[in-house]
């Protein structure tokens, strides 16, 4: 049990109480039903996504990550990060852990900021759905107007906040350590 999990437990507890007060037990039940349905619907994708994450984590060497996405990549880092973000499919339960893996393997913070912006703004797999429902014209305008954001935001972070890459890496290591520790303590019980 780490701080993040305790925080999330407190938030779900507070939301649960709020839902109970505004809609009674039925609304609480509905929330859990949606949560359960979401979980079951993504189980297959979850298994494949983590298999892929495991493969990426063992195949991507620190050299590769720092060459393409880290300090050595220079201004090209945010650009490669954005390209990667536009191509990687999958939901937040997949790409946030992937970002953590890439960061600890040597990717820069700004590059990951580019990655996550591009995941939502340049997403290749999502464009057909957006076009289908929103229309070609509006999708094109949306794409054009937000086109520069991923690279600019990432480059901005690399230039103005260079020290934060290491700080965020420390945070990730601390989070991962807590998880492993928690597991070990669980085993002793």
């Amino acid at each position, binding site marked *: 049990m780490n701080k993040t999990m305790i925080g999330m437990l407190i938030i779900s507890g507070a939301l649960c109480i709020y839902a109970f007060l505004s809609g009674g037990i039925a609304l609480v039940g509905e929330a859990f*039903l*949606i949560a359960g349905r979401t979980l079951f619907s993504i189980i297959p994708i979850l298994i*494949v996504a983590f298999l892929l994450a495991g*493969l990426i984590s063992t195949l991507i060497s620190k050299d590769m990550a720092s060459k393409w996405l880290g300090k050595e990549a220079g201004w090209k880092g945010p650009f490669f990060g954005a390209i990667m973000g536009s191509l990687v499919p999958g939901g937040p339960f997949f790409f946030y852990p992937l970002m953590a893996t890439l960061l600890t393997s040597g990717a820069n913070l700004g590059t990951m900021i580019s990655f*996550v912006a591009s995941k939502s703004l340049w997403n290749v797999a999502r464009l057909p759905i957006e076009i289908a*429902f929103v229309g070609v014209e509006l999708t094109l*305008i949306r794409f054009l107007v937000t086109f520069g954001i991923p690279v600019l935001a990432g480059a901005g972070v690399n230039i103005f906040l260079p020290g934060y890459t290491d700080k965020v890496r420390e*945070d990730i290591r601390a989070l991962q350590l807590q998880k492993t520790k928690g597991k070990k303590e669980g085993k002793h019980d």
Partner: protein
Amino acid sequence: MTNAFYTLTIMAVILFVVAYRKKKHIESIIEARRMLINVIPLLLLAFTIVGFIEVLVPKEALQNWLGAESGWRGLVIGPLIGALVQGGPFAFFPLFDSIFRDSVTIGTAVAMISAWGMINIGHLPYEFAFLGYRFVLIKYSIYITLPTLAGLLAQLLFG
């Protein structure tokens, strides 16, 4: 969801072949299993929170907040709504199509779609769990104004 499943499967198969050639396939599966087991408790909590957000933020109320003649307010309220609406593209885009598309300006639409992707509050549980609070602070302090600015730009250029 189905498209993402097939794309991920194809990518996994390709990388598995690469890993097999490097004799790293067993190691990869062990690593995958370790990662998955580590995140299961977090995922259960994250899905619970997403479920509550979904029942507590009613879709009809969202439409009322925005109204038809919101003007510049749309550039602020639009992204707020985009950030609050949960679900993947198959949930958001049909919702946008049915409720908002015909009643909002181009600027509001661009701001809303951008905010749904960039500052979605449903991502916060995952971001805190995997990347830590400093990443969340940096990301949101940079991203918070961008959807509104993008909407403004779209309105000025194409409105």
